[in-house]
């Protein structure tokens, strides 16, 4: 019979921010904290926020230039931030800068013109 634990918060005993989880192969463990995404979001025109997690605000810096600000900040400027575009057929997006408090995504056409686009993004890294 499956056991069920009802709990609202998980905290490490030895280190509050460190809990290991047995991996799928049963041979190694992985970090719960470092495996959890710290933020994600979908923006329908890049500037707005259709849905998100740990994104407090979004700023439209201009065409194809968007800054997403965290609700809870990251520990460093070195988070692993990835993003994809849903309809940017003739363009791409790239990292426009990272801080512990926010990050910027820019979208351009192949010829270099700024381009508004749907973007989906996620952030992995350490919380402050």
């Amino acid at each position, binding site marked *: 019979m499956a056991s069920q634990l009802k*709990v609202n918060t998980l*905290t490490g005993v030895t280190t509050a921010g460190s809990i290991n989880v047995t991996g799928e192969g*049963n041979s*190694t463990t992985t*970090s719960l904290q470092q495996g959890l995404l710290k933020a994600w979001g979908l923006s329908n025109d890049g500037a707005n926020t259709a849905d998100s997690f740990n994104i407090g605000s979004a700023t439209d810096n201009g065409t194809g230039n968007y800054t997403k600000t965290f609700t809870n900040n990251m520990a460093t400027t070195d988070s692993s931030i990835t993003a994809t575009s849903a309809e940017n057929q003739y363009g791409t997006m790239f990292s426009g800068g990272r801080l512990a408090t926010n990050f910027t995504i820019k979208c351009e056409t192949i010829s270099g013109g700024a381009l508004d686009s749907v973007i989906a993004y996620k952030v992995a*890294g350490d919380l402050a």
Partner: protein
Amino acid sequence: MSTLNVDALVGNTSANAITVRGEGSATTSLQQGLAKSWVCLKGSDTFAVRDSFNTASATDNGVGDYTTTRSNALANGDYATAGICSATGGGNPHYNFIVENSENSGTKIRTTTALRTYILNARDSESTNDAPDYSMTFMGDLA
């Protein structure tokens, strides 16, 4: 409000399977929902790992040509990756993107521990190109 203080979580029926109640009515897998590795690299100037998780090494194979390896291997080569890099200045700025291989890049390497990727610049006949920032996240099953 309850708080569980614990250092390790192990499934009861199966050690590798813990279910978590989702935001709505469904449940989701704790193990499969966790990213198994991520890395943030500095690709230009002096190549370096800015920050990482479950990353054993990062190798600069050449211009825009990086290989990262995992400390704990994935179960197979079919893990999902997502990456993005920053623009590069110079004669053909911007429009960098990350691929695993192409006509103008080298060998594809995707194993349970290693992933080789190439940063291409579409404005310069898809030549390989270093980027100041490079991020990659790995989702899949641990070995």
